[in-house]
C-alpha cells in the first residue's frame, strides 16, 4: 500500500512539534474529514531556519507533513513556495490514489504558514 519512503517518514517523522513565537503559522483541514495539518516556521534572512508540523491524519498525512518540512527546511521563501503537492508525493515515491488528497494538505499547510509570515512582514 505505502512505499518504503512513506513508511520511513511515518515511523520516524521529522520535525514534529510546534515552534513557539513562530514567524509564520498555517493550519488547513478539518477534523471531521479526518485530517488537520499545522505548520509553524522560523524565518531568518528570507530563509526557513526551522519548521515544525502537527498532524491529525492517516499514515500518508503524517508522512507528507514530515516530508514537506524536510523539503522546506533551509530553503528561501521563494523556493519553498515552489513546493507542490505533486513534488511532495513524488519525493515520497508515490502515494496510493485514495491518499493523494493528503499530500494536498501538506503543501497547502506550508503555503498557509508562508502567507502568514509574509502578511506579518508587511503588517
Amino acid at each position, binding site marked *: 500500500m505505502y512505499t518504503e519512503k512513506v513508511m520511513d517518514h511515518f515511523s520516524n517523522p521529522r520535525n514534529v512539534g510546534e515552534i513557539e513565537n513562530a514567524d509564520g503559522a498555517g493550519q488547513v483541514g478539518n477534523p471531521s474529514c479526518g485530517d488537520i495539518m499545522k505548520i509553524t516556521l522560523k524565518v531568518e534572512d528570507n530563509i526557513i531556519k526551522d519548521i515544525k508540523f502537527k498532524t491529525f*491524519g492517516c499514515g500518508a498525512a503524517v508522512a507528507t507533513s514530515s516530508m514537506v518540512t524536510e523539503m522546506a527546511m533551509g530553503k528561501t521563501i521563494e523556493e519553498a513556495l515552489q513546493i507542490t503537492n505533486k513534488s511532495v508525493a513524488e519525493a515520497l515515491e508515490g502515494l496510493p490514489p485514495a491518499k493523494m488528497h493528503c499530500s494536498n494538505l501538506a503543501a497547502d499547510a506550508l503555503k498557509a504558514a508562508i502567507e502568514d509570515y509574509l502578511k506579518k512582514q508587511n503588517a
Partner: protein
Amino acid sequence: MRKVYFDHSATTPVDPAVAEEMIKYITEHFGNPSSIHSWGREARKAVEKARQQVATAIGASSIGEIAFTSSGTEAANMAIRGVAYANRQKGNHIITSAAEHSAVLACCKQLEREGFTVTVLPLDQYGLVTAQQVAEAITDKTILISIMHANNEIGTIMPIKEIGEVARENKVIFHTDAVQSVGKIPVNVDELGVNLLTLSGHKIYGPKGIGAMYIRKGTFWQPITFGGGQERRRRPGTENVAGIVALGKAIEMATERMYNDAQRLSGYRDRLIKEVLEKIPNTILTGHPQNRLPNHVSFCFRFIEGESMLLMLDMKGIAISSGSACTSGSLEPSHVLTAIGLSKEVAHGSLRLTMGKYNTEEDIEYFLEVLPPVIERLRAMSPLSEG
C-alpha cells in the same frame, strides 16, 4: 518480534483441523456433486454432511433449510432481496437498523432505488435497537425486518429474540445477519425466532469464500441468481465443495468450543476495557459495556486518527482495525460510530480489537504495554491534543 492477531472480526485463521478436512477435497476428492458417477456421489455426500453440520449448529429442523453461498455478503443479498422480490405483491416496506453491515445496508439501498421503502432504525448510545422500535415501525406494507445479531464494529448484541416475537406477532418475515455471532454466542433459529439467518465461514476459523443462508421452511422467497439447479434451486453454480466441507467442520468445532472460549475471552475483554480506560485518558468505550461479544473490545481515542494508530501497532506486530474514514480511503468514518452519537472527529480515532481462540494472556499483556506509548506519540503529533 511478537506477532499478535487481534482482528478476528475481520477474518480468522483457518483451524488446522478444518484445513485438514478441506484439503482432502482439494487434493483427493474432486468430483462435481452434480455428477452421477462415484466421483460425483462422493462429493455430494460431503456437501450434504456439511449441510447437516450447519443445520445442527444453528438448530434448523432440516437440511433443506440450509443453502451454501460464497460469502456472508451473498447470503445477505439472497435473504433480503430474495424475500423482497418474492413478497412485492404483499408490500414494499422493509425495516432495518443503522447498525447493519454494508452487505445489508447496500441491499436495502438498492431496493429503495427499485421502489421499496426502507426504515433504518436509529441506535441508542450503545448501538441497540429495541423490539418496541421495531413494533412501532411496522406498517401493513412491511414485508421484511432485517436486524443483525451482533455488531461487527462495536460488538453490541441485539435483542433478536424480542424482535423475533414482534415479527411473529405481526407475521413479518425476519432475517438476522449472524455473521459475527455464530460460534461466539448461542445461535438457535427457533429461540431467536427468525425466518432467515446468514453466516460466513471465514469468521469462524473456516476459509474465505463460503457462507450459508438458513431459510425456514415455508418462507416466501425467490432466487436472485440464475443458472443450474444446485442448492435445491436456491443458488446456482458448481458448489465450492472444499469450502462447504470446511464450513461444516468449522461451525461444528466453533459450537463445541463456544462456551469455554467465551468464558476465557470475556475475561480478557473485561480486563482490556478496564485497564485501557484507566491508563489512557480521553478514551471512550464504544458499544455496550456488558451486552457485547465476548471477544470484542472497541474504543475511540480522542485527538488521534485510526489509520496511524493501526499502522504503528502493526509495526509492533499487532493487528487491529479501525472505523476511521482514512483506513477505507473514504471521506466518512464508520456509519455505526456516528449512529451511536459520536462526532466524526472522535469516530476517526476508533480502534477495534477482536480476540480469537489462539490469543493468550501474554498477548493481552503485550498489547497493554504497547498501546499507551503509541497513543501518546500520536497525541504529541496532533494539533488537536491539548498536551
